[in-house]
């Protein structure tokens, strides 16, 4: 059982550090594989592009880590990213300045997350259903709002700032991802509500008896998820240069998979942000590597399945879990 190692705890230092590093094993193996097979893969420009391109996935996966840690799920993220990008594009199209538009989208995203959380918690129904409903509603609305035509974003400063611009030599999306990662990590293991999440996910009844405001924590997490999704929508819109209703159907499953590949339990109480980062990186590297390697498009699925399996098995073996 590597459960203990997953949770933040007091007394561990080097051994724990080493164990935290082990999930890199699967990712490292894949990177090595690609580097050996394609001359185009292993270089800074490709990695930089990879990081920038996977920022959306990363942000959503960070939020998903918190949600899954609680034993909940959010199936609406892909649809909400698309809807928010559409709104962002339309608002800017209507002449609103980009800071206001971005702020508005962040607030709406936060509100959607809050709504998901509130219905789940106050209605006491599974988040699976609530967010499935939200997914359908958001998808429907993004098509209805646009009449199925993607809305181009012509605001160059916005596009540059959230995609091309650099700060201290690194691309802005990387800074945003890094900031979100640090903030989420701090929240998860250094803040009171964050640490309480582990208890809420593993045993909500016991957490409640320990004085944890379980409902409030759950709603908070969904709201944080909403904000991260909104930030992801901003980056996605800047990257695509448009608000498109079909922009991110694969995002939801990819984000959940990243978290689970990172060793989290779908049923709550166990998740690690560092490992989620690895899981998301694995997915991003896989998608990128397959293009560069020119893997046959039909075989790509099989290769992807087998590599995910190998990475997971390798990681489980390395971290000393059951066979």
């Amino acid at each position, binding site marked *: 059982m590597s459960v203990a190692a997953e949770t933040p705890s007091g007394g561990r230092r080097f051994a724990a550090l080493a164990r935290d590093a082990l999930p890199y094993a699967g990712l490292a193996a894949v990177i090595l594989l690609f580097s050996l097979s394609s001359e185009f893969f292993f270089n800074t420009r490709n990695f930089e592009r990879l990081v920038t391109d996977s920022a959306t996935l990363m942000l959503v996966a960070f939020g998903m880590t918190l949600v899954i840690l609680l034993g909940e799920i959010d199936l609406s993220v892909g649809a909400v990213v698309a809807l928010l990008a559409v709104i962002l594009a339309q608002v800017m199209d209507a002449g609103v300045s980009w800071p206001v538009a971005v702020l508005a989208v962040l607030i709406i995203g936060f509100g959607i997350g809050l709504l998901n959380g509130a219905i789940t918690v106050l209605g006491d129904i599974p988040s699976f259903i609530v967010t499935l409903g939200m997914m359908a509603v958001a998808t429907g609305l993004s098509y209805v709002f646009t009449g199925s035509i993607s809305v181009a974003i012509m605001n160059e400063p916005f596009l540059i700032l959230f995609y091309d611009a650099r700060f201290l030599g690194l691309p802005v999306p990387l800074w945003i991802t890094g900031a979100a990662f640090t903030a989420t990590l701090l929240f998860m293991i250094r803040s009171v509500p964050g640490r309480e999440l582990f208890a809420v996910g593993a045993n909500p009844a016991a957490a409640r008896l320990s004085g944890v405001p379980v409902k409030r924590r759950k709603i908070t997490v969904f709201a944080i998820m909403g904000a991260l999704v909104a930030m992801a929508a901003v980056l996605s819109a800047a990257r695509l240069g448009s608000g498109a209703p079909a922009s991110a159907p694969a995002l939801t499953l990819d984000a959940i998979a990243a978290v689970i590949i990172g060793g989290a339990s779908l049923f709550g109480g166990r998740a690690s942000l560092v490992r989620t980062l690895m899981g998301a990186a694995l997915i991003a590297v896989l998608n990128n590597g397959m*293009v560069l390697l020119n893997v046959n498009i039909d075989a790509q699925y099989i290769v992807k399945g087998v590599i995910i399996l190998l990475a997971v098995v390798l990681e489980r073996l390395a971290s000393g879990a059951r066979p």
Partner: protein
Amino acid sequence: QECLGTAEALTLTPEQVADVSARGLTFGFLTNNQSDDFSRTLVAGAEAYSAEIGVDLVINNADFDANTQLSQFDALVQRGVDGIFLTAVDAGSIGQAVRRANSADIPVFIVGGAPARGEVISVMNAASYQGSYDATAAMMEAIGTPNAQIAILGIPFALQTIRDREKGVLDAVGAAGGQIISLQSDFSQDRLLELATNVIQANPDLAGVVATWSLAVNAATEAVAQSGRDILIAGYDSEAPGYMELHSGDTNIVALSGQQAALQGRAALEGLSQAILEAELCEEIITSNLLVTAENYAEMWDIQYPGVKPPWEN
């Protein structure tokens, strides 16, 4: 003629082919999905021709995800291919990447509409509007009565071609004095079958169904057959199941509009090659559609699927 404006005009001369071969080019080829006949025929056409002219292809599909397609596009730019051809998931959402290709001097040739920004060498489109207009008009004529009730079965997708097809249907129905009583759409063939069945069931006076994409054609055909009613069908996309229907001699399909995917696949490589040889392409290149009916289906198959054995010969 200032620019090359048709698929035929793109044809490479033997000298040009030799020139292209000598350069050892690699082209990236991105489809918006890989499970439909159109994409596969397009790819097959391109693959066959790439062997002829000696260029390498890197092929990928986006499973209808605009973000994924953008990543794939960027990976191709990163790989330094000599040209990129894509059937866009959403033309409006690829412009950023097109700009990056522009600055890397990689020519881009696109199906599905001009991107919002960046320069492409040309936009290739099938004659969506005209094709669906023609097929629908043929059906309206076969129905023959005014005020005929028509249902549309479509795909809820944000592609320019889909909107053009629907417009073609509306105009043709309007011109013949018919009325559209239902417009339903879905992505799945099984759901489309359900929708078609429900629509037929709910409308006793339904005279015709226009299916605006391949799976809708299959679904409409099957639903009409199961209902046993005399409802006529026009369709956009003629694929093996539609051809088999026409071949059976007992069908409600009046006409199908066939896109020339294999031709487009070939034209894609020719267009990119022409651009590399510094020829000027017109802003839009339209490939004409085939109007496939019970009379001409055998000839049409050979045009639409060159070198592929017709299904009725199996």
